[in-house]
């Protein structure tokens, strides 16, 4: 499989990259890790006329703590997120998700910005960022804007990005003290696309009842979705096995809208959703510190 001919632009700065994206808007694709784009090009499913290589653009791979939260450059490699003590401390949900993202060699090249911009419905990071209420900074020659994760993923492989825009930074807001988290997915083989997955955070009030819950589902809808019905069931309740089971049931029957494919039927995916949400809510509740 050889790709169709394309023009290659190696950008030396963000301004150069944005200028190239603007000049070729609609015909250009940004090359970050390339772990999804290049196979699509090799299969000739994608035939961008222009590739804008971001790998030598400085200033896009920072991993900083700030007052507002964790600021992650779009070109941060998955492997860096995986191995960062700061990420483990500030955003353990991200740290738990990373080992499930493909395999180590792929994680050394794949990037955070690339994963979000690609918006594969089975990807881990979009769901994690949705659960964590991340803010996604996006730039073009026309300026800069910030899109909340909840508004960023608009449909099947679709985001709010315009044709000339690049993701430049992702901010994970400082999480509430005592927040519990859990990540889980089911895949046929380690590193495969998930058949179903969940990234969840929740907090407990002084009496131990659930005061907030964000349960992001992936691979069971055309984009990552918050299991709003599940959260409604759980809000104000003690996280007993019965409450968790009811929430998991709501997630499976009302929030998930899976399609069938050769690996898993819609019914099986709903079943897995029920299993995973149940597990994740229990685990997150165990980790949460009440009254925080």
């Amino acid at each position, binding site marked *: 499989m050889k790709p169709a001919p394309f023009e290659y632009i190696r950008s030396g700065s963000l301004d150069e990259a944005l200028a190239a994206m603007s000049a070729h808007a609609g015909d250009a*694709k940004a090359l970050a890790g390339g772990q999804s784009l290049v196979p699509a090009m090799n299969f000739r*499913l994608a035939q961008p006329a222009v590739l804008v290589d971001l790998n030598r653009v400085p200033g896009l791979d920072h991993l900083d703590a700030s007052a507002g939260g964790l600021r992650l450059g779009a070109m941060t490699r998955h492997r860096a997120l995986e191995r960062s003590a700061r990420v483990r401390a500030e955003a353990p949900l991200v740290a738990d998700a990373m080992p499930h993202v493909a395999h180590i060699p792929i994680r050394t090249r794949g990037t955070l910005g690339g994963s979000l911009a690609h918006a594969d*419905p*089975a990807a881990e990071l979009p769901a994690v960022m949705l659960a964590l209420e991340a803010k996604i900074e996006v730039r073009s020659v026309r300026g800069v804007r910030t899109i909340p994760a909840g508004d960023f993923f608009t449909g099947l*492989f*679709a985001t709010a990005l315009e044709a000339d825009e690049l993701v430049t930074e992702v901010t994970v807001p400082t999480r509430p003290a005592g927040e519990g988290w859990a990540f889980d997915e089911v895949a046929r083989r380690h590193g495969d696309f998930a058949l179903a997955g969940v990234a969840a955070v929740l907090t407990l009030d002084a009496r131990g009842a659930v005061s907030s819950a964000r349960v992001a589902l992936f691979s069971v809808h*055309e984009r990552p979705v918050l299991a709003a019905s599940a959260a409604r069931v759980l809000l104000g309740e003690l996280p007993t096995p019965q409450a968790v089971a009811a929430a998991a049931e709501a997630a499976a029957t009302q929030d998930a809208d899976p*399609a069938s*494919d050769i690996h898993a039927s819609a019914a099986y995916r709903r079943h897995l959703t029920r299993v995973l949400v149940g597990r994740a809510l229990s685990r997150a509740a165990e980790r949460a510190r009440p009254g925080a």
Partner: protein
Amino acid sequence: MTLAGAFVFRGPRAAVWELLHDPDVLAAAMPGARQLVRTADGRYEGVMKVGLGPVTAAEFTLVVTLIDEVPPDRFTMAIDSQGTLGFTRGSARVALAETDGPATTMTYTADLQVGGRIASVGQRVVESAAKAMTAKGLEALQRALDDRLARAREGAGS
């Protein structure tokens, strides 16, 4: 692949029927349709360029043939679409029922065969993509219907 569903148009059935037979409206509504031309009675030909995430290369020629028309009740379309990434072939049955509003409930069932490259490496998303494109197309048709009805009211009013 079977795509089936229903969609409620805000508008009378006769208007919806007309809309669904207007190649310019259909061309504008179908995601990625570049052109759609009536080449014979009940036969439309055109070009579609479909994009989904990284898949940008999907350009297809499209031939739609209307058969079994029972205006304004129902019709069947034979669909034949070919490109370098594969082909889609099949038929779709569409039925229109007028309800209060006036509104029209359109029910559709499409049996489509997808073949070629897109079928053998895209199976993970082919069904979702078809559903997503159908949903987008129907929403676009609703907007076209709104426009058409608004212009008709203006015309009648002036």
